[in-house]
Each structure stands twice: as C-alpha cells, then as structure tokens.
C-alpha cells in the first residue's frame, strides 16, 4: 500500500488504511519495515502494544497525528530511525521468552558506556541479551505515543524526593509491577549521575520477588576538586577503569559469558562508527544556514549515545547514512525549517520526551542547532591511543560534560561552544532532580562569563510535561526569543561574534 506524505503540513494522505483496519501492520510499514519483515514482526508488535497498554486507537493516533506533528517523517532516515527503536522494543518484549529458553539478560540504566555493555553481546551472541528498559520505555512511550500513564500512580514513598519526581524511575517501577519488564539475570547499574538509580533497582528487585536477579553497581564518587580535568587525572582514570573491569568480571560470573579485550574492542569499534556519523550529522546541521531539520529529528539519532541496544547499531547506522544524504540534499537545495540567518541555539539536553519545546522555539524563530550533551564525540575520540581498553572507556566517560565535576563540565562546554559558537544556549528541564538542576544553574554562569554567550534557563521536566505545559511555558519561550532578537538587532557595536 502506498503512503504519501505532504511535507508542508505533515499530513498523511493514506489510501485505504481505515478500510484495511490493520493499523499495526501499517505502522511497521510506515517505519520502513519491508513487507516480509512486517509480516514476521506483526504478532510481536501487537504483543508490544498489548504489553504497554497501547490501544489500536493509540497506534492510529501515533501514526496519523502525534509523530507527524513533531517529527519530519518525509525524511526516510527519520522513518528508519523510528523503525530502529521499534525493532529494539520488539526485541525487548521477547526477553521473557528468550530467558525461558535459557538465555541470559543484562539490564543497565541510563546513562552507561554502551560499548562496555555491548561487549557482553559481542561475546555471548544470541545467548545473551542486553537492554536499558528505563530509557527504552520512556523514549518509546513518550516519543512514539506521547503517553504518560506509566509515570503515574503507585506508591513511590520509598524513594526520596528526587527519585519520586523522576519520571524515568517511576516508569521503571510501574513497568516492573505491570510485568512489562522481564526479570534480568543481572542488572548493571552505572550510578554515575543518578545515585537514586541503584536504590530504584533494589526496590524493583523487592517488588519482583520471583527474581533471582543480581545487581552490580559501578559508582564513581563525586568528590573531586572543582575544576579538575578528570580525564587527565590518572588516579581517577585508574580508579574508574578498575571499577568497570571489576564489574565486568562480576557480570561474567553471573552470565557465564567471559568478556575479553577483543570483545570490548569490537564493541568500541562499532560504537565509534556510530559516534563518528553522529559527529558528521552535528557538523552538517550546525554549519547549514538555513538549518535543514529541527532538533526533534537529530535528537532521535543522538539520544542513544549512552544506550546499548540488543539489536546493535546496525539499524541506526543504516538510518543515519540515509539521513546524512538527505541532509546534504536539503543543504544543497538551501531548504530550511526557518529562513537563513535565524538564530541558532545549543541545548544542553534536547527534551525529546516533550517534543513541543523544539517546535515552540522554532515557531518563535529560533533553531536549536545541536545538543551539547551529545556533541562531545570529538572530545571523546582523543583517547583512542591508550593501550588499555578499560582506561579508554574510563577516559571517554570522564570526557563527558555530565559525568564530571561542574568546573570540568563548564570547561568542556566552553570548548564545545568556542568550536561551535551560537546565539544562545538553552539549559533546564531538570526540575525533578534538584542536584543536577542546582549544578546547572551555577555552571551556566561560569560558561556564560567565559564564552559571552547568553545562557537561558527553562524550568521544566525532561520526562513529563504534566506540570510544565506548553501553554504555561509559551510566554517564557517568547521571552527568550524576544531577548535574542533584540540582542541580534542592537549588537553591532558590542558583538564580537
């Protein structure tokens, strides 16, 4: 069946979809599943929807309204990318079945170094499965369907205030109670950023009394002196690399799959291929004027930077290759979302779960050009020459702005902004986490002082917009837009950029 897109209005003109009534099959076809693949995956896809309490009506709404409203699915790369998420979700929904067959399951939670986890897949092949259920569920349910039900209800009083407010934690706990998440063989928790993560795991384990699952925590205390460049601090690198190596040994003990340096190197190689393409994508979008796509499109590709998929990077790499070609074509044609010369912003962490944010900025004449949280690949690649793979991973982790002390983070962001200057930087959306929120509010002032680029803060909740709605935030975004436009108009005698 042919599906045509009207790119201007993002409206789908469908032929006979309603008559056929098989919206599930149509969904897979729309996101680049071949006819055979759709046929093969259809029962699993229906099972996923049942599991997630996604009705036929929800699927239809997602396909016909929600996704076209926020993502430019006239681009095949975008459709393929969404397809890659669906494939991973289908794989995730089959984990219980795989486990019954004797396979091992490793879970991790956001964020982790993907190569470290994927190395287990390289070593174990089809006998082992990896997943990041929190990220996958929240991304898919929010991004594909715009639903928030799994973030409501239940008693979260065992978690402290921050844990309770985190939509991701709430969704994990709910999903566990609803039986959506199969019990893992082992959970590898990188409690690097969110130290509520390990506690949530333990709570989930308590809820899931049948689980024999084990838990391995790799934690890095945040006790380094402000401003220390952690990736150059040998003691810190050594400590973290030992922690990762030790955790891997523990995990191998539970899964029975030995992971050696070659496995990790292979995983790292695959990961770097993805990172390089991501870097090229960021460069193309940043340098293009007019900007060919919105932040919603590029975030689909970049948000898995800290997420290992059981289906690997293959589908994403395929999608990103197509997307890069489409970007180049749009750049050649000078096709843009906004007119040339429109201000460009960087955003610390584009809130893909609340896709209207990017859209409202666009409606106010501002492009969000790149995501600092994800635009770090060139910084991370400088550690390739280390001979110890665990040290490489530790250095890569410590070269990430959000993994280090706020002074180091500020300096990293300053380097990124000096390399890719913008008209403004957008921070915020962490109202559910007063630790990150507080750190950001102070860090941005250090960055601002050095780069002379205004940093705008937007209160909000990255995972869920229930308390910060589009209507409520509109005047604030207008505020930012006006300030930027005034600055553009009058800055002739002071602007150096």
């Amino acid at each position: 069946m042919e599906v045509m897109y009207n790119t201007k209005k993002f409206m789908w003109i469908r032929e006979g979809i309603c008559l056929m009534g098989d919206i599930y099959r149509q969904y897979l076809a729309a996101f680049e599943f071949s006819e055979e693949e759709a046929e093969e995956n259809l029962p699993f896809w229906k099972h996923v929807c049942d599991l997630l309490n996604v009705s036929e009506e929800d699927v239809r709404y997602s396909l016909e309204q929600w996704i076209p409203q926020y993502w430019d699915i006239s681009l095949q790369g975008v459709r393929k990318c969404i397809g890659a998420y669906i494939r991973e979700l289908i794989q995730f929904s089959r984990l219980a079945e795989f486990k019954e067959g004797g396979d091992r399951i490793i879970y991790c939670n956001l964020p982790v170094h993907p190569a470290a986890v994927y190395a287990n897949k390289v070593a174990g092949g089809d006998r082992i499965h990896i997943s990041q259920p929190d990220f996958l569920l929240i991304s898919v349910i929010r991004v594909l369907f715009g639903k928030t039900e799994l973030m409501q209800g239940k008693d979260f009083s065992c978690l402290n205030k921050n844990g309770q407010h985190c939509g991701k934690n709430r969704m994990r706990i709910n999903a566990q109670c609803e039986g959506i998440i199969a019990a893992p063989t082992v959970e590898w928790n990188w409690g690097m950023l969110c130290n509520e993560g390990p506690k949530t795991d333990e709570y989930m384990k308590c809820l899931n009394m049948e689980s024999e699952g084990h838990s391995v925590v790799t934690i890095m205390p945040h006790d380094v002196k402000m401003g220390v460049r952690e990736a150059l601090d040998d003691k810190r690198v050594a400590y973290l690399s030992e922690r990762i190596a030790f955790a891997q040994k523990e995990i191998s003990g539970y899964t029975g799959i030995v992971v050696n340096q070659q496995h990790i190197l292979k995983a790292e190689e695959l990961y770097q291929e993805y990172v390089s393409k991501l870097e090229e994508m960021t460069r193309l979008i940043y340098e293009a004027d007019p900007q060919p796509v919105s932040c919603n499109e590029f975030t689909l590709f970049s948000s898995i930077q800290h997420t290992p998929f059981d289906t690997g990077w293959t589908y994403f790499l395929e999608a990103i290759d197509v997307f890069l070609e489409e970007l180049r074509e749009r750049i050649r044609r000078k096709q843009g979302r906004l007119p040339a010369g429109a201000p460009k912003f960087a955003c610390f962490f584009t809130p893909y779960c609340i896709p209207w944010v990017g859209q409202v900025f666009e409606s106010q004449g501002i492009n969000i050009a790149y995501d600092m949280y994800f635009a770090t690949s060139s910084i991370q690649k400088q550690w390739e020459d280390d001979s110890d793979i665990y040290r490489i991973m530790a250095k890569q982790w410590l070269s990430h702005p959000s993994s280090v002390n706020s002074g180091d983070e500020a300096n990293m962001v300053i380097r990124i902004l000096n390399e890719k200057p913008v008209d403004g930087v957008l921070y915020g959306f962490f109202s559910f986490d007063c630790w990150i929120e507080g750190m950001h509010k102070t860090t941005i002032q250090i960055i601002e002082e050095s780069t002379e680029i205004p940093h705008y803060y937007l209160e909000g909740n990255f995972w869920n917009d229930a308390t910060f709605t589009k209507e409520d935030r509109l005047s604030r975004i207008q505020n930012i837009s006006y300030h930027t436009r005034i600055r553009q108009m009058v800055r002739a005698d002071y602007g150096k950029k």
Partner: protein
Amino acid sequence: MGRNKVLYDKQQIIDIAVMIVEEEGIEVLSARRIASELGVSSMTMYNYVSNIDEVKRELMIRGYNELFHNIIQKLALKEKKDRSGVAAFIKIYAEQFYEYGEKHRNLMKFMLGEGYTKFYADAELRLFVNPLQSYYKYSKERDYKLACRICEDMLYSELKKYINGINPLSKEEFLYQVEFCVERVFGCRQ
C-alpha cells in the same frame, strides 16, 4: 462564593493575578484573593502553582514579554544604523518602559520593586529583570560596562520616581535626560 469551578490551566490564575495587581497593587495579591476571584478553593489553585511566588514570577515574565515585544516592534521600524549598539537600545528601551509604566503603573511598580529584589538572581529571569545587564555583562571592556551601568541606574531611578509619583519627569523630560546621559557617558563610542 462558588467554589466548584474548574480551572483549565495556570494562565487563568496569572490572568486574574495581573488584573488584581493592575487594579489594586501587588500588596493585595494573595492565594486566597486569587482563588476567590476565580471561584475556586486555594487548594485547587495550588494544583497549578506551587506558591504565590510562582505567580509573581509569572507576572514578571508576562510584563517583560510585553515590554520586549514593544521594543522589537520599535526597533524593527528603525534603519539598521539607527538601532545598532547599546546606546541606541537604551533610548528605545527607556521610551518603551516609560510608555509601559503609563499603562501598567502597578505592574511596573512591582517589576522594578519587589519583583526585581525577589527575582534578579533567578535562573530564568536573571537576563530579563535587567536587560541592559545581559548586554554589558559579557563585555570585557571595563569602561563600556561602566557606561552601561551608569545609564541603567539613572534609567531605573527616574522610572521608579515616575511610577511612585515622587517628583516625576514628563515623558519628554525623561527622554531628554536619558539621551543626555547616554551621549555624555558613551561619548564617541556611539
């Protein structure tokens, strides 16, 4: 008093708050008063805002939004050469601020008084409560920063006198004074 109405969004609360402040001043603004005007209980209101400070914060955002919008419209009417630089901006800003004060005296009194004191360091508002600051604070040139600051202080001092009715200047006198100050302070930098 009916207390069974339904609130649809936070904006209804802000709309009523603006109305109360415009008519009677910030002193009478309270959760109870807003709830009463809306015909809902205070508890219902607190489902939409965390406390009265959040309402006040929104008043600031709304006030500056309107002000900035007017400034952009004015700037857009000018030739590029006549709108470049902070000095040119100060003159337009002063004029718009004065006109805004004429129309929304109580709201502006709040924006320059309690609102400023409360929110000048707020992460969301810090670049807006003092717009000139967001230009000169990035400059590494000391004299330039000083020039901006002097003009800004004079501007706010006169505006406060005007909205409080203490020895106020007429619009013409006010704008003449702003221009005089800008020309002397910025000198040949214009």
